[in-house]
């Protein structure tokens, strides 16, 4: 079995979007899957996982398109100026490109962390349409996510092992924090968290994420949802989904994974993720539902 990989820049309204495609040359397919990455430092941690998962999905017969969002990776733009709407637009452009250039007829999407939340919310608003949306460890409470990010950033910039000079006298550590706050104010309300300035657009959008807003409501949603997360993240799930009319027909699968990942450990913000359990579960679920007639 040979997996053919190709890499290209696709023109979008805001510039160019970097897209990697994976195709099984022995199993030509018209079913495509778009991989939407996580944001910020999590993109780097998940990159290897995404390439491995792309290959695993291609082996199962999907035409895989893995993209870098606007302001991320090799795509054009700065992260601080990028917006969720630009991401949704880019996903739609990639979808159109896949339909026109690769003859893909059926679509599924796999979003990782914030990528999963973006897919789910955009799908509920009918901004994106996919047959199946799979989300791995989606963010289900935006304020918690932001608070964890902020807290991890504060721990990181005070970490004497990382910022060695702050060891020599406490005053330097304090001045670092002051400088950080002053510079943040100068950046048009952008906030620095673990290596990136988050612009007001993303901050506002993230704060609006709640479990209730995210929960698939079959009466509104055309896509089928698969969530893969840990039990702790999904603990409020029954309460949040009490309003959903389960008789409307759409299926919603929630699975838990054994892979235990601390996303906010400032000591490991650049460490690769090897989530083998999650990868296999997601691939199996996507194969089961995306190819179903």
């Amino acid at each position: 079995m040979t997996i053919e990989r190709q890499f290209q820049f696709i023109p979008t309204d805001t510039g160019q979007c970097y897209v990697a495609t994976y195709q099984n040359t022995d199993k030509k397919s018209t079913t495509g899957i778009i991989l939407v990455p996580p944001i910020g430092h999590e993109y780097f941690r998940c990159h290897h996982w995404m390439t491995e998962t792309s290959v695993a999905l291609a082996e199962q017969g999907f035409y895989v398109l893995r993209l870098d969002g606007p302001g991320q990776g090799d795509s054009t733009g700065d992260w601080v100026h990028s917006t969720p709407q630009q991401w949704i637009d880019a996903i739609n452009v990639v979808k159109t490109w896949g339909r026109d250039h690769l003859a893909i007829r059926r679509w599924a999407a796999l979003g990782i962390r914030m990528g999963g939340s973006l897919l789910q919310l955009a799908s509920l608003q009918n901004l994106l349409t996919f047959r199946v949306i799979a989300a791995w460890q989606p963010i289900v409470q935006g304020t918690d996510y932001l608070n964890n990010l902020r807290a991890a950033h504060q721990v990181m910039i005070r970490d004497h092992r990382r910022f060695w000079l702050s060891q020599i006298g406490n005053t330097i550590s304090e001045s670092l924090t002051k400088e950080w706050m002053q510079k943040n104010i100068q950046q048009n309300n952008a906030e620095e968290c673990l290596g990136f300035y988050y612009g007001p657009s993303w901050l506002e959008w993230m704060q609006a994420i709640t479990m209730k807003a995210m929960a698939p409501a079959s009466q509104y949603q055309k896509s089928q949802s698969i969530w893969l997360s840990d039990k702790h993240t999904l603990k409020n799930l029954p309460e949040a989904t009490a309003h959903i009319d389960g008789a409307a027909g759409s299926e919603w699968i929630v699975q838990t994974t054994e892979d235990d990942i601390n996303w906010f450990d400032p000591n490991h913000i650049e460490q690769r993720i090897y989530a083998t359990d999650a990868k296999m579960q997601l691939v199996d679920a996507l194969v089961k539902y995306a190819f179903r007639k």
Partner: protein
Amino acid sequence: MPSENSIQDVFTLGRHNHLVAIMERPCLLERQQLVVMINAGLVPHVGPFRMHVDLSRALVDQGIASLRFDLSGIGDSQWPINAAVGVEQHLQDMDDLTAWIQQNFPDYSVWVFGSCTGADYAHQVLCHHALFVGGIFLDGYAYPTFGFHARKIADLLKSPSRLIAAIGRRCLQPLTRKKVESHADLNLETQSFTWTLPPKTETEQDYQDWLNRNLFWLNVFSGGAHDYFRYSHQIYDAFPKLALQERCEIIHLPRADHLYTRVLDRKMVIEMIVDWMINRCPEVVKL
């Protein structure tokens, strides 16, 4: 902001066509210079916290092209079938890249950029390939000197908590030290973030060779290199027999961490590198 002055292309290369490189070329100004960026550890070609992309775009605004490159098994590049072991494969990748540049961009003056383990590779590339005219190393090679040890002791005395911690570590060292037989015994993850400093005499010989070849190189050290680098003149002091001042520039940014995680630190180091590059290659051809 997105660089509107550039053209981005993706290339696949290598003897197994397994390597991926992104080339960013200027549209308006052209200096016929190309900076090749090597992975920092296992971080993909976009660089730690997107540093390589930001640097590429800052360079391209000044008319300098760049090539962000993934070594085998990192980022978008694959491990080839029948690959050599770890570092050997990566050095083979650099041979492939060099041959590819020679074939496709023969008119360019080529520089190499590397951070962390990338700096280690960049050093070796500069030694083995005549194609390159200079290098930029972030937390690359440096050797302790009398000045280094004096500053280390002074820094310890300035901070009692560090002094106590250092004594504690020294006392516990025999109990906690893990024995590593050789670099080859480490797994890929560990190998990719660690490198062994070569003997000083070897590096001295390399520098002498670089001086003979009229190369220019820039060494940038962050606070993350404090274990072996503490002051700007340390490299000059470590090699007193060599006249390095005219060819080798050193920048010390002790407030930054090893990966330039803070945005402002990253912006600062990028600006410094671009300024240094502009001074090394002043000719501008307007397209």
